[in-house]
């Protein structure tokens, strides 16, 4: 019996969840690369060309973006990643009913490690244990900045608590 593919849910700005689990490996690699570029604050217009410019990977050889391409899981995820960059860079505005989480509130494991002053491995362990909220996208981690910040605060509170009990 064929093994069922693991679900990899991605939440769009609109709040809709799409499953990346069924995408071929190459598509996922494209999204991870795009995500890393977005995290590195690459220019919105450059990223936009990567998803819908001539010869862009999500077009899969089509000279045009058709309705079918636009509604594909790959294109929806790629468009969402790039839209978040556009919003952060002030090039486009979010829709009124968009969710508030934008890419500026998401950090990589390496960034979280720098922020917290701990190793990347420790950050990943915390994410795997659910102590830092986030999601694994391919080989990378997308972590909620608010969760990373509160993780940093926790030991501080413990220290403050100890001081209070002296």
């Amino acid at each position, binding site marked *: 019996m064929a093994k069922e593919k693991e679900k990899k849910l991605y939440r769009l700005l609109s709040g809709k969840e799409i499953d990346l689990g069924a995408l071929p490996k190459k598509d996922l690699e494209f999204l991870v690369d795009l995500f890393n570029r977005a995290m590195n604050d690459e220019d919105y217009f450059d990223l936009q060309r990567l998803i819908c*410019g001539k010869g862009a990977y999500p077009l899969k050889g089509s000279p*045009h*973006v*058709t309705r079918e391409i636009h509604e594909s899981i790959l294109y929806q995820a790629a468009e969402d990643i790039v*839209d978040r960059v556009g919003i952060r860079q002030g090039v486009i505005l979010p829709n009124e009913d968009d969710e508030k989480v934008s890419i500026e509130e998401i950090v990589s494991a390496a960034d979280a490690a720098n922020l917290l002053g701990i190793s990347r491995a420790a950050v990943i362990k915390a994410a795997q244990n659910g102590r830092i909220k986030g999601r694994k996208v391919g080989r990378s981690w997308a972590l909620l900045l608010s969760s990373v910040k509160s993780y940093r605060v926790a030991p501080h509170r413990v220290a403050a608590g100890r001081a209070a009990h002296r």
Partner: protein
Amino acid sequence: MGEKQNSSLLACQFLIPTRDREGKAYSRGVFKAIQRGLEDRFDGWSLVSNNPAPGAWRAPDTGEVEYDESWRYEIGIPRERIGELDEYLAEIAHMMGQKAIWRVAYDKAEGKVVSARKPKKPGKITKSGDK
């Protein structure tokens, strides 16, 4: 684009401004609505590689030179559908609060520009592309 490719197909390019006339960014939904409208009416769209195109133009009402940046879109349509495209561009202009949307049509087989103009004055707003 199927059987339509058999008739005289024109490559039509048009400029969609990245910001409104006061320099404010549009919501992402505006561009999605435009794109979906192009997909539904003309079977698709593409971006020309050197986007966004910086431009300067003289406003006919004030005489002042205004600067903007625009996405350069391209679609392929039969010659007889140019009027339909211009109608849609007029709707887009109205929706975006723009005076007009510049458009040019090339006949690639003949290697020449067929027509280039600012379409008719803005028409009514439709939500046909906003699904």
